[in-house]
């Protein structure tokens, strides 16, 4: 199965020709890749798309082939395995504990996987998911009114894929100047770059001083 790191490398090279022998077949089943096909050039570009990172503790029967049997369904739901720890010390009723970290594209895919595991008599003892987001903070200084910030953020939402927003205002507002801090979480690095550009331009137009954080 293709790894996310490889996907980025392909993207950096500007894509791969369809049918080329150096394109691993598994790449098409990897959820963190979206294949963008350019009809004109005949090139397809692999792009990393949003994925839900999941960590799960499961128990499988201590029989040959059971571990592989528990991993195969992840591929069936277009998932991407990031790591597997086969914990032979963790034994329960003749079953062995396995900790798996994987990516799936949606909660529907995760539900589908859970159903397959249940059908295969695999016990799920814990499952947790995290959606990867990219945080950024902005401090705005100037003649700011909350409705103006709201307007800016509404426009930002139209342009950028924002996961969450938090706004705080300084308690010590004078008649002429107010300070606000906006914390956002966006869904991708590309969205983060867009958000930075949007905020810079919006603040410049509104004559507001804008201080942003640093990308981690």
């Amino acid at each position: 199965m293709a790894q996310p790191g490889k996907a980025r490398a392909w993207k950096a090279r500007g894509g791969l020709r369809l049918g080329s022998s150096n394109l691993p077949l598994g790449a098409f089943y990897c959820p963190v890749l979206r294949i963008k096909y350019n009809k004109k050039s005949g090139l397809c570009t692999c792009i990393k798309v949003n994925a839900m990172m999941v960590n799960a503790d499961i128990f499988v029967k201590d029989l040959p082939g059971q571990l592989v049997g528990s991993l195969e369904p992840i591929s069936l739901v277009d998932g991407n395995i990031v790591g597997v720890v086969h914990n032979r010390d963790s034994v329960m009723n003749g079953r062995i504990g396995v900790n798996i970290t994987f990516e799936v594209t949606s909660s529907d895919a995760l539900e589908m996987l859970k159903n397959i595991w249940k059908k295969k008599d695999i016990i799920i003892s814990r499952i947790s998911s995290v959606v990867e987001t990219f945080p950024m903070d902005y401090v705005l200084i100037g003649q700011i009114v909350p409705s103006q910030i709201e307007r800016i953020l509404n426009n930002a939402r139209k342009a950028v894929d924002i996961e969450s927003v938090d706004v705080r205002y300084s308690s010590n507002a004078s008649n002429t100047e107010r300070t606000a801090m906006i914390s956002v979480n966006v869904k991708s690095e590309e969205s983060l770059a867009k958000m930075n550009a949007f905020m810079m331009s919006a603040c410049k137009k509104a004559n507001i001083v804008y201080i942003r954080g640093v990308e981690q």
Partner: protein
Amino acid sequence: MRLIIAGFGTVGQGFAEALSKRADMLSSSYGGVKIVAAFDSKSYAADKNGLDPIALVKRKTDTGSVGADKMKDGIDVLNSVEYDILVEASPTNIQTGGDGLRYIEHALRHGKDVITVNKGPLALKFKELKKLADRKKAMIRFEGTVGGAMPIINLCCEDLKGEKVRSIRGIFNGTCNFILGRMDNGLPFEQALKEAQYMGYAESDPSYDIEGIDTACKVVILANSVFKRNVRFSDVSITGIASVNAEAIALAADQDMVIRLIGEVSDTVLEVSPRLIPKGHPLSISGTLNTAQIIADMAGPITISGKGAGRIETASAILSDLIAVMEKRR
């Protein structure tokens, strides 16, 4: 090696002292270095057999002039004395490049190696000076222009030669960092600035520092030298720290962050602006230190820190450039 020191202010004097301190090492390893001329804005001293560096510093301290002979233009000194290396430490002029630019161009045109700590000429005419040096098979080195004693240019261009440096972010102005650090402790901007002036960190006209001009010059030098870009001072997006208020500092602190003036450069970015930095991040330091985070493709992040200004600290950077030149000219 025969040197001329152009500009005998704080840095020029510090360098003369450093030469005196390292005289034995320079003599045993490189056959010695002698100052054949030194000049400031009004006077000059010259001796083809070499001048005593400590006597030059003493004379400057006592009389305000480096030499007894009056001088109209430093170019006359450059024309009248035989030398190998020009050490250029005259005051920065970001509008025209000032006399420093003329001295550097003159020396390079005559095939002389140049070591400069003057940001103005490099922020305005980096490519032209580099081309001129290459054409005349001369060297131009400028480690002291960015970060004082913090070895960033030579680190990136020589020690990290095999790396692709992706970006450099750093605190390149100790005055601004001192002010912002004091604001973290609750001082308003004006009071923090006054304190910086009282301590001698800020000039009576602090605009060069607080408007981000000084940092922008350094960002241009890094962009041209490390990233091989062809940019000028006017290409930098600059926001100073004058608009940072106590409320902004408090809001940042509430989120475990501080505000620092950051210069950032990469293949596409050329920016100086106040930024929110998480506490504990390498760029969250307080005080007058400079610090830089270099992101390299194989080595990953490399953080360096050091004194960004000062008499002997900047002289240390000139000395490292001098030794590099002498190594190559051996």
